[in-house]
């Protein structure tokens, strides 16, 4: 009985290892078609679900070669330029919304070109049999990174302010209820932040900064608001680990509160503070629901900060159920990228900054 229970508990502990490695392996297996087709070039290709023709100098497995692919599209546009008048409008109408939104992706990408040209090129390509659909992940990857950076820029100062306020400025009568409120807010489901962003915060921001009410800016700010409670309660906890004796001796030498915070508390709690920021960053990176409402979900690079774009989790959330074949595989590739990215970020935080805690 004893031996059985011991084995069982050891097995359960191993389950964690198994699940994590299974996630990696399974994602990789499902992403395999896309990985072998697009290779590492997937990460820098801004086109998603774009149909391009296969020229003779550009064969199917050649997509990993950037220049060849770009040339292919460029050539294609040139030929379309030449016989622009011949193209019928009917072929354009056969494209669904998806393709239409992707035209923008081409536009803002390095490929450039007129709207009409690209539309015509797309229409042209759907007619010819010798086409393939290209999936590239650069737009969602850039969207994810940009929205996370925005969120950090917004959240770090405010979260630091809150935690300094709670740890040093406010007396226990004020800091206890406020601290508890902040911790409770960290427990609110992220979908609530998303709804609030869609109906109240988005319109509010677009009134101030102009642009649409779903945009990269709104997404970044909603993410920021969402991680503020998480970040500030972690930061406050690590600030509170500073021994009172250290602070008191600094005060005794005539230091002001700011000097105590800057020269005593920060150096002492530095590792914990940076670690909690990276943890919050990891959370912002993988957040789906708060972003899905407010980022817009279109595959374009944001030209300005108030333009809508897309992020990896949002691509997954919006397109997963309807996908199959290569598009599904490309989605798994994106999921793999996200998983590896957040895995690296979080392990980095764990091993370099939060190691001493445990």
């Amino acid at each position, binding site marked *: *009985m*004893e031996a059985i229970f*011991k084995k069982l508990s050891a*097995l*359960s*502990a*191993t*389950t*964690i*290892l198994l*699940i*994590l490695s299974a*996630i990696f392996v*399974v*994602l990789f*297996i499902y992403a395999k078609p896309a990985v072998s087709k697009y290779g590492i070039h997937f990460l820098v290709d801004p086109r998603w679900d774009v149909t391009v023709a296969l020229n003779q100098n550009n064969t199917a497995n050649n997509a990993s070669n950037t220049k060849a692919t770009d040339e292919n599209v460029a050539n294609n546009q040139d030929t379309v330029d030449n016989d622009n008048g011949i193209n019928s409008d009917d072929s354009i109408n056969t494209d669904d919304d998806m393709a239409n939104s992707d035209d923008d992706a081409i536009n803002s990408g390095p490929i450039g070109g007129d709207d009409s040209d690209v539309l015509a090129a797309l229409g042209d390509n759907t007619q010819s049999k010798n086409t393939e659909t290209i999936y590239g992940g650069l737009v969602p990857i850039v969207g994810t990174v940009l929205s996370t950076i925005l969120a950090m820029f917004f959240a770090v100062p*405010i*979260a*630091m*302010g*809150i935690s*300094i*306020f709670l740890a040093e400025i406010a007396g226990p009568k004020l800091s206890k209820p*406020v601290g*508890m409120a*902040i911790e*409770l*807010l960290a427990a*609110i*489901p*992220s*979908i*609530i*932040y*998303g709804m*609030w962003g*869609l109906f109240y915060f988005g319109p509010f921001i677009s009134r101030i900064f102009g642009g649409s009410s779903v945009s990269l800016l709104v997404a970044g700010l909603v993410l920021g*608001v969402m991680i*503020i409670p998480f970040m*500030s309660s972690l930061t406050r906890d690590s600030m509170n680990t500073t021994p009172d004796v250290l602070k008191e001796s600094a005060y005794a030498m005539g230091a002001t*509160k*700011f000097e105590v915070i800057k020269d005593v508390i920060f150096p002492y709690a530095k590792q914990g503070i940076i670690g909690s920021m990276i*943890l919050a960053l*990891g959370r912002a990176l*993988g*957040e*789906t*629901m708060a972003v899905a*409402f407010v980022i817009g979900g279109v595959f374009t690079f944001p030209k300005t900060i108030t333009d809508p774009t897309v992020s990896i989790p949002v691509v*997954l*959330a919006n397109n*997963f*159920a309807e996908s199959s074949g290569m598009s599904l595989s490309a989605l*798994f590739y994106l*999921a793999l990228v*996200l*998983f590896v990215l*957040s*895995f690296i970020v979080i392990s980095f935080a*764990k091993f370099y900054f939060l190691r001493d805690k445990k």
Partner: protein
Amino acid sequence: MRLVINKIVLFLSTLAAVLGLIFLFWILITLTVKGVAALNLHLFTNDLVNNGLRNLFVGQFILALIAVVLGVPIGMAAGIYLQEYSFNNKFASFIRNLSDVMMSAPSIVIGTFVYAVVVNPIGHMSGWAGAIALAILMLPIVVRTTDDMLGLVPKELREAGVAIGAPKYKVIFNIIIKAAKVGIMTGLLLAFARIIGETAPLLFTSGNSQYFTLNLNQEFPSLTVAIYNLATMPDKHLVEIAWAGAFILTVFVLIINLLGRYITKEKKR
């Protein structure tokens, strides 16, 4: 000069705190105003197909409950292993770190994983897949809680148990777990609160259903997924229903959290 800088910095950080709190309370207030305005008895007695929320509440609760049933035994056993059997060897600290990393893994990635291993082979979305996704999400939280709480139990209790000749599993079950009961219960409550508000892993695992169903082999009603779908509808009335659902969900999550805190406080006294 030093004093002036001091004043400025303190003022700025207080300002930041006030600003942050304003945002957070703005959310709560809009949620309450919108949610309470849309609340009525009709929501609790009808299913989504008749513009009610009854099947969604039941569905979400069942999903989370099954996740608890699946995740808690494995998680607790793993926590017990880490604290009681591993003697803090390298493997144990490796698993501990791994579990912490897994706790912060993007929930949507867990959804894609479950889609790949459960939904795709079966061929359609099902309640089981959703529950499994939530259980995976919950697992590292349970491990961490059990591990931490068992670590707080004094060594003397273990020694006393072994001294009267009890086998180790009996010591663990009858003495150590009992001593750490309150802490573990609180941790489980908080883990439950965490997963019941999750949307992303359910989107393409359990899907959503308009009807009342208890059959976990079909697409299963889920409150959070429904809120996501309803909130993006053009119909004003459906958006109001989404607000009501969001309000009830938040209240539920906050009550569980407060309950957890209350239990911990009672224990400390």
